[in-house]
């Protein structure tokens, strides 16, 4: 067992080069879901929320230049590699891996079951070139490709901001992107799949939350829990005008629960819900 883990660790380490454009690797550090807080403090919660299995951290140094850091996460599944990639979507797509962003010295991408962050402590033309070269080499070394979660195909296409879709499991990540409640009123857990998508309609920003529960009964319980906690004053079942004069609407279909937040009108909230349920 211990030997297997060591072999897996060695295999993962072999996917990251030890030298790039004059930068040389220092000693590797590895972390698991229990020890990750020793490396990135509270930020470790993000990767734990996506069921990450292990992290290989490799620092590269070159005399007179800023350091580069590769954080190589084995997420265990392509869905979670994609999901954790969607946690932070800022930046320019660099065409590396199956999806990538670059901004402020940080390249992030996902490929197969891996999520990779390559970071230059100071962004210069030279460090940017090295970050890109490192990213390319790692992406090419990963032997597998992965599928995006099927749940995403249920999001209606009309007015969808494709660059603003977050995929996740639990309410901690939901609250990160869109604060709903301090309690888990949607009964989310590591077995649920959720997509939070932004829609733009005539200058309005409307949020659609789509959740797939392991079974229909759980979806029904979540609907009851959510509507009782979030819209106890609803005049119609599953829809309410909130204090900012916007509309929230919720509906279930089998094991799916859809919630629309911030719709400018009741009619639009209803239409968006109908479009999800129709799919």
């Amino acid at each position: 067992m211990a030997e297997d883990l060591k072999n897996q660790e060695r295999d993962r380490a072999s996917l990251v080069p030890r030298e790039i454009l004059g930068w040389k690797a220092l000693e590797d550090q590895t972390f698991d879901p229990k020890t990750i807080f020793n490396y990135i403090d509270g930020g470790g919660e993000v990767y734990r929320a996506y069921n990450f299995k292990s992290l290989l951290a490799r620092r590269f140094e070159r005399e007179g230049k800023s350091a580069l850091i590769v954080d190589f996460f084995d997420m265990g599944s392509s869905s979670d590699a994609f999901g954790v990639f969607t946690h932070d979507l800022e930046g320019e797509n660099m065409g590396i891996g199956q999806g990538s962003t670059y901004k402020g010295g940080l390249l992030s991408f996902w490929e197969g079951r891996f999520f990779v962050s390559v970071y230059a402590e100071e962004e210069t033309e030279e460090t940017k070139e090295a970050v890109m070269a490192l990213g390319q080499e790692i992406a090419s070394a990963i032997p597998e490709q992965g599928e995006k979660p099927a749940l995403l195909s249920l999001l209606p296409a009309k007015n969808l901001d494709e660059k603003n879709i977050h995929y996740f499991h639990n309410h901690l990540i939901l609250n990160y992107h869109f604060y709903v409640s301090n309690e888990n009123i949607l009964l989310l857990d590591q077995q649920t799949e959720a997509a939070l998508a932004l829609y733009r309609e005539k200058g309005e920003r409307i949020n659609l939350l789509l959740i797939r529960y392991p079974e229909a009964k759980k979806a029904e319980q979540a609907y009851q829990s959510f509507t009782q906690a979030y819209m106890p004053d609803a005049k119609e079942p599953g829809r309410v005008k909130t204090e900012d004069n916007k509309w929230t609407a919720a509906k279930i279909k089998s094991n799916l629960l859809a919630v629309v937040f911030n719709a400018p009108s009741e009619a639009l909230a209803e239409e968006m819900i109908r479009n999800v349920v129709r799919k």
Partner: protein
Amino acid sequence: MSNRRITRRDFLKVAAVTPIAGALVPGLKGVQSAQKAEPLKKVRVVLVRDKNALDASRRHNPEVIQKMLDDAVTTLLGENDPIKAWKMLIKPNDIVGIKTNVWNYIPTGEAVEQALKRRVMDAGVPEDSISIDDRGVLVNPIFKKATALVNARPARSHHWAGMGSCIKNYITFVPVPSDYHPDTCSNLATIWYLRQVKDRTRLNVLVMLTPLFHGIGPHHYSKEYTWEYKGLIVSRDPVAADSTGLRILQAKRRQYFGEDRPMQPTPHHIFLADAKHHLGVSNPDQIELVKLGWDEDILI
């Protein structure tokens, strides 16, 4: 607010009477209050800035920072002489822990630490009764028997608490920090009621020299999202200091992104430190903000 369920709608309801909530949840502009505001007792917060606080390489200028701190503390306490002002905070027989922050990208910094230590010594405390520490406070002999704490940390966005705040700076006083992670650290204020900390804090300094207004990636840092604000926020109330710093970070985000983009995750631990845990005040209407020094691009 009792220990109960809180939803987004609670923030919407209180937005008008507690403007800090507007920094937590997007789209709250224009919400009108049905309540008539009562006269409020205000907490003083001093924001001091100096154009020369940093050199061209962003190194802290110790002399300027000492003067900034002195100006802030004298104004805060209404006493012209800095040493007399510090004697209002610290007694010669106090054992003093200066709680700093050593985060590698933006630490509190030696200039601020030493400026504080100097004035604690000027208040009559012998050097061997003072310690500066962050991650070792639970085993540090001075901190273990401290009768007074001075809390100093840089303001920054934070990947799990929303904002690295004065309130949050006491996280190292608990043995398992992750115990405070639920609901993105909403109950950080409870740390301030622990035996080793309770009622010991004499001053809070939120360092705004090069704040981080946005973070990316596992390390939550890019120099691109820092700027040379060259300020210190000083208050006896940690919540008021944080609330003021948050408004500046939020204003910088608005300026940089060109739209109202609340911190992610929402730093609601600041609002809840007031509304739920009664540690201090977060409502700007209850804060007397005194601004000193350089006012270009002050953002508040």
